[in-house]
């Protein structure tokens, strides 16, 4: 094994050598330093290799041949090898990224950097407490030196603040180290740790040591100096501070914590407070680097608390800590390096990355990794963390961690939204040099690879779920191809995949078969509509497939982990789909926030489940006994964010309405079903538990009110897609209501509605989307009379609205019929009445939709508009055939459904008798009604036709108009605010109280954040006061 003293030797030797050499030799010094850094990497990798492959044992190297306490010991173990590898890789890439800064007379930077990383290595390796002090100071001085040569405007004042703060902190460390020595006569860490009972002096000493290390890790609120460095210094230096120094200090803390078990609680508290507070304060941050600083502090705080949780986590500790650390390390360094490419510090300036899509993708990867999305390591870290915390009943910690993560998600996704959507013309173009690109690319690739590798390693995630992700990667690489080729590939892939997966489920599990069918067939159909788009449609296919991959994983999930994995993947994909719309920035954000909030609720629920069952099988939900109510509620809330139940619905209208024409049906007709599927799974597993009945009752009311509010709100919309979006909310409200009934008929209703909603909402959204593509506006009052120009679209919408409204003979009536029977059987009369009332309110918006768009007066500028694209018409008419089939032969679908549901609800009053469906209450023959109505309609049509054959077809202004003639179609088409009277009577129900509530909450949080960050006055002395106050407060805490 290579001796670590070589690191010391190379570092110091080369630095001194370069100092001694003349001015000329310095020109070529860069090469020497590069070689040195490479040798660092080589040494640490060789250790890593030896530990991983050759199972080497931990070795200590002693200086000058003495044994401690008379010498300094350096220890090389697996942990040290990993950490030094990370640090040295970081050092190498930092050097690369600072390459250009080191030209033009600033060659001094090179040796300083070398010393810095040498110091960091030593900090990791050393086992001597005083030696730590020395290298702490060396790194501090080296970092100060780096900042000193930084040309950024405020770098030096930030550096000065950093220096005074670190001087104070290291002095505290020094005091601690000396006290340690006096209490037990040794500075050798292993000796100190070997002590069984410490003297009070030793306790104070250890307290001071840990305290100063914690202070080095920038705990809230004693961290203003660090924030200023992040903001003021070159982002490449920020990367070093955040990733390399942060990791080193964390490891140091971990190392020293071996002697300070009594401080674990302190670490947990400080870490979590930092995590939550810095994420909260970051909400109002507009400077990218400072934001990254806040985020770094937050992440490091989380890891501090994980170090504190060491005993609680037990053997999972290292896994959790390393997963989160590595994610933080790679992502934060990458983000800082990305920031280094930009001239402006503004968050919105990151939109220039749109010109270089690779960088945007990297940005997205880093953000998603930080939040803890799969397949990145932090996902597994967070999952394991939550699961284990739940197992040990640390529920408040779970809540705190999830709240902090949620706050972090808010600003990170807002930032990502800026990058994706904000107009970038006013910002300087990004200039990309190879030396800036290489580190970012490498780290991004490492992050992705580590994630996939981890997914491969994790128990509970099947490898098959990873193939789609790889395929998506491939599709991304093919992004330069025209859209139709990618479309074909995507359809083929989806078809192939569903062809493999789908059929076995028919026998095995009909429920999954149906939902998988909805996802797969719906996916294929909506993708067909994509042929209508010209050009390349960059970025569309990877994210669309990502969503479908997530959905499919969700269905296939056998374990709660892979269920959650699929859920998150689907969320990520759909987020990108939604944010592709023209004005979707804030809608994408609110979708993401609700989704993440929901996902965390699910995570917490699954964690609580695991705590009891110690089993990640998804069916283990059924065996929950304790906290069943809470678990049920958490999971239900999680799923309800996706189905947009009342109160959690405010993201949906904007997100669906502003999405692209073929995305709207994807996210409405298909994606929402994921929430429904989740609810199904939940209710199947836990529905039998008597404790959840009361919650189901509440869910029933929520569903009913959702239906009412959704439908009423839809009636007052002027935007066609927004109208349909509200309609979706209401339809999902029906489904929720029906599911909550927890009876055979109720679930029949839910299944029928799910199927129907998939078909007719896809038809409507596709058609309206296609119409919008043609006419170029969402506003219904700007359309009108399009039946003349778009008969295909009209027929589709007609079928869609008849089916949606539940008018016989089309399939929607099946849902209504089951509904009545289910409600009567269950006895939820008032909720039922609300739902029925809202079902009738649906007529208002359906009429408005078809009338305002297709009937009435054709406008001037739409006189030559063409019918909808054939690529939209194909899926639409396929779905219409589906509806027709379902309407004509409902029992063919309903009977298997009913049989399927009897496995959970064996007692059913439903019986099938030929063409008749009977329940306790009523009977209905879908086929018979269809035939009767068809015959009657045809006879009556003939009757009219015989009597009136000489009909003159007139044009649109040939109407009686009080003896005048209409003047313009715009003034003749009655559409805007058509239900004004109704609004006067019932509009109060849909007053946007819920949006106001959410706005107030978010305003409150923002104002807290704004108020809170005032403590960072920018004055170095204030920061000193913070540090001193922190010390005093913690000391007082410990005195108690």
């Amino acid at each position, binding site marked *: 094994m290579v001796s670590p003293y070589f690191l010391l030797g190379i570092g110091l030797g080369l630095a001194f050598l370069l100092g001694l050499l003349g001015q000329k030799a310095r020109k070529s010094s860069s090469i020497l330093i590069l070689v040195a850094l490479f040798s660092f990497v080589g040494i640490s990798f060789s250790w890593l290799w030896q530990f991983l492959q050759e199972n080497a044992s931990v070795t200590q190297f002693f200086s000058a041949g003495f044994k401690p306490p008379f010498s300094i010991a350096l220890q090389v173990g697996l942990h040290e090898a990993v950490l030094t590898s990370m640090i040295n890789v970081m050092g190498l890439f930092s050097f690369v990224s600072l390459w250009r800064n080191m030209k033009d007379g600033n060659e001094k930077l090179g040796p300083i950097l070398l010393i810095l990383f040498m110091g960091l290595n030593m900090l990791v390796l050393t086992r001597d407490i005083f030696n730590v002090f020395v290298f702490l100071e060396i790194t501090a001085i080296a970092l100060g030196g780096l900042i000193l040569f930084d040309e950024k405007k405020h770098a030096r004042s930030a550096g000065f603040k950093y220096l005074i703060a670190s001087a104070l902190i290291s002095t505290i460390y020094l005091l601690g180290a000396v006290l340690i020595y006096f209490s037990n006569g040794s500075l050798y860490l292993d000796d100190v740790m070997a002590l069984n009972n410490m003297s009070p002096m030793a306790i104070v000493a250890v307290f001071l040591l840990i305290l100063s290390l914690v202070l080095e890790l920038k705990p809230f609120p004693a961290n203003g100096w660090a924030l200023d460095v992040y903001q003021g210094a070159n982002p490449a230096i920020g990367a070093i501070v955040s990733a390399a120094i942060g990791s080193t200090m964390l490891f140091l803390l971990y190392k020293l914590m071996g002697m300070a078990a009594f401080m674990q609680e302190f670490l947990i508290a400080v870490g979590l407070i930092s995590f939550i507070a810095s994420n909260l304060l970051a909400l109002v941050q507009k400077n990218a680097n400072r934001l990254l600083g806040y985020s770094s502090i937050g992440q490091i705080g989380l890891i501090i608390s994980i170090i504190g949780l060491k005993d609680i986590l037990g053997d999972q500790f290292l896994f959790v800590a390393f997963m989160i650390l590595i994610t933080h390390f790679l992502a934060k360094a990458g983000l800082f390096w990305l920031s280094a490419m930009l001239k402006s510090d503004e968050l919105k300036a990151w939109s220039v990355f749109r010109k270089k899509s690779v960088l945007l993708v990297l940005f997205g990867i880093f953000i998603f990794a930080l939040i803890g999305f799969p397949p990145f390591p932090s996902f597994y870290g967070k999952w394991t963390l939550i699961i284990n915390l739940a197992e040990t009943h640390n529920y408040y910690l779970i809540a705190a961690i999830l709240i902090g993560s949620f706050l972090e998600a808010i600003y990170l996704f807002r930032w990502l939204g800026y990058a994706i959507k904000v107009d970038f013309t006013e910002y300087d173009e990004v200039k990309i040099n190879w030396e800036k690109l290489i580190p970012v690319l490498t780290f991004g690739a490492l992050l992705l690879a580590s994630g996939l590798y981890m997914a491969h390693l994790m128990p509970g995630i099947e490898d098959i779920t990873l193939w789609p992700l790889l395929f998506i990667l491939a599709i991304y690489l093919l992004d330069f191809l025209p859209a139709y080729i990618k479309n074909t590939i995507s359809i083929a892939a989806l078809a192939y995949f569903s062809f493999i997966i789908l059929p076995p489920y028919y026998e095995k599990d009909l429920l999954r078969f149906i939902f998988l069918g909805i996802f797969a067939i719906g996916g294929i159909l909506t993708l067909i509509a994509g042929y209508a788009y010209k050009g390349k449609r960059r970025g569309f296919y990877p994210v669309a497939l990502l969503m479908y991959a997530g959905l499919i994983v969700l269905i296939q999930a056998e374990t709660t982990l892979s269920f959650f994995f699929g859920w998150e993947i689907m969320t990520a994909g759909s987020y990108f789909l939604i944010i592709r719309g023209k004005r979707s920035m804030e809608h994408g954000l609110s979708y993401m926030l609700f989704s993440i909030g929901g996902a965390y609720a699910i995570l917490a629920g699954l964690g609580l489940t695991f705590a009891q069952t110690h089993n990640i099988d998804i069916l283990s939900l059924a065996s929950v006994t304790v906290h069943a109510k809470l678990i049920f509620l958490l999971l239900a809330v999680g799923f309800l964010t996706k189905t947009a139940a009342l109160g959690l619905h405010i993201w949906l209208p904007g997100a669906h309405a502003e999405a692209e024409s073929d995305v709207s049906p994807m996210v409405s007709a298909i994606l929402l079903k994921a929430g429904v599927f989740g609810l199904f799974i939940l209710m199947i597993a836990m529905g039998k538990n008597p404790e959840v009945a009361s919650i189901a009752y509440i869910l029933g009311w929520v569903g009913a009110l959702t239906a009412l509010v959704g439908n009423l709100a839809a009636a007052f919309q002027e935007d066609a897609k927004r109208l349909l979006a509200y309609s979706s909310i209401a339809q999902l409200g029906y489904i929720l209501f029906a599911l909550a009934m927890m009876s055979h008929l109720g679930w029949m209703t839910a299944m029928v509605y799910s199927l129907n909603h998939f078909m007719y909402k896809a038809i409507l959204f596709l058609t309206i989307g296609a119409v919008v593509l*043609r*006419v*170029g*506006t969402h506003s219904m009052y700007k359309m009108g009379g399009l039946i003349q120009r778009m008969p295909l679209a009209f027929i589709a919408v007609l079928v869609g609205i008849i089916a949606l409204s539940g008018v016989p003979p089309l399939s929607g009536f099946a849902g209504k019929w089951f509904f009545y029977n289910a409600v009567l059987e269950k006895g939820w009369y008032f909720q039922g009445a609300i739902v029925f009332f809202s079902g009738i309110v649906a007529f208002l918006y359906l009429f408005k939709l078809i009338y305002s768009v297709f009937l009435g007066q054709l406008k*001037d*500028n*739409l*006189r*030559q*508009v063409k019918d909808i694209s054939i690529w939209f018409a194909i899926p639409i008419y396929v779905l219409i055939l589906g509806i027709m089939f379902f309407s004509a032969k409902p029992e063919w679908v309903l009977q298997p459904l009913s049989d399927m549901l009897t496995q959970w609800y064996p007692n059913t009053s439903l019986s099938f008798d030929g063409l008749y469906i009977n329940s306790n209450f009523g009977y209905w023959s879908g086929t018979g009604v269809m035939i009767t109505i068809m015959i009657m309609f045809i006879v009556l049509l003939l009757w009219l036709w015989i009597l009136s054959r*000489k009909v*003159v*077809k*007139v*044009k*649109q*202004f*040939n109407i*009686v108009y009080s*003896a*005048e*003639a*209409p*003047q*313009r*179609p*715009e*003034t003749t088409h009655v559409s805007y605010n058509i239900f004004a009277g109704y609004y006067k009577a019932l509009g109060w129900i849909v007053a946007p109280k819920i949006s106001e509530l959410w706005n107030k909450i978010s305003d409150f949080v923002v104002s807290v954040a704004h108020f809170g960050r005032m403590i960072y006055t920018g004055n170095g002395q204030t920061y000193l006061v913070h540090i001193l106050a922190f010390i005093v407060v913690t000391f007082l805490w410990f005195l108690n």
Partner: protein
Amino acid sequence: MSDEKNKFENPDYAKRTVIGPDGKSFVVDPMQDYFLDARPKVYEPVSIPVVEKFLNWARSESLWVLGFGTGCGSIEIPPLMTPRFDAFRFGVQSRATPRQSNVFIISGYLSIKTLKRVVRSYEQMQNPKYVLALGSCTINGGMYFDSYNTINRLDHYIPVDVYVAGCMPRPEALLAGFNKLKSLIREGKAENGNKYVKDFDWYKANQKKIIKDWNMPDYNW
């Protein structure tokens, strides 16, 4: 007034160029595009006399009057329909839309401006249709015989089935007029809807002679 507002408040039916949503511009000619520009047709009675007689009887017993008061005579309509005279007894009803009406009561003088509306409403009524003209004004101009904007003879502009003389005729006279109209219909003599079509050009020439701003198609379907 802004141009945009003016476009809606004072429109004309001149051709205009508009830009479609796909960016292509094209010309809209309201007269062609928004109005059916076809000549009216003659609708012959049913060729079987018995059937036609029966239908004429039904028509005569179901007279639906267009609620359009053109002049001072419209004040005579309310007493006609209310308890004092109760024209409902004779199958007379009032309808609000020319599409569903058969009888057009021209109740008094017609200014040129009103005539234009009368012609439009008359043409929007469906065949068979009848005109009942009240008062001297519709016969020879009455007291407005020398007015610069009141017509003198209605039958030069639309065909009249029955004139009811007087200034104004009382409801009794109107009832008598209805009875006359009924007998005309039953006899099959009330085919003025077709007469209007047959003499279409003559009527149009007369109308256009006095209606100077002719901004409608020749026949208002």
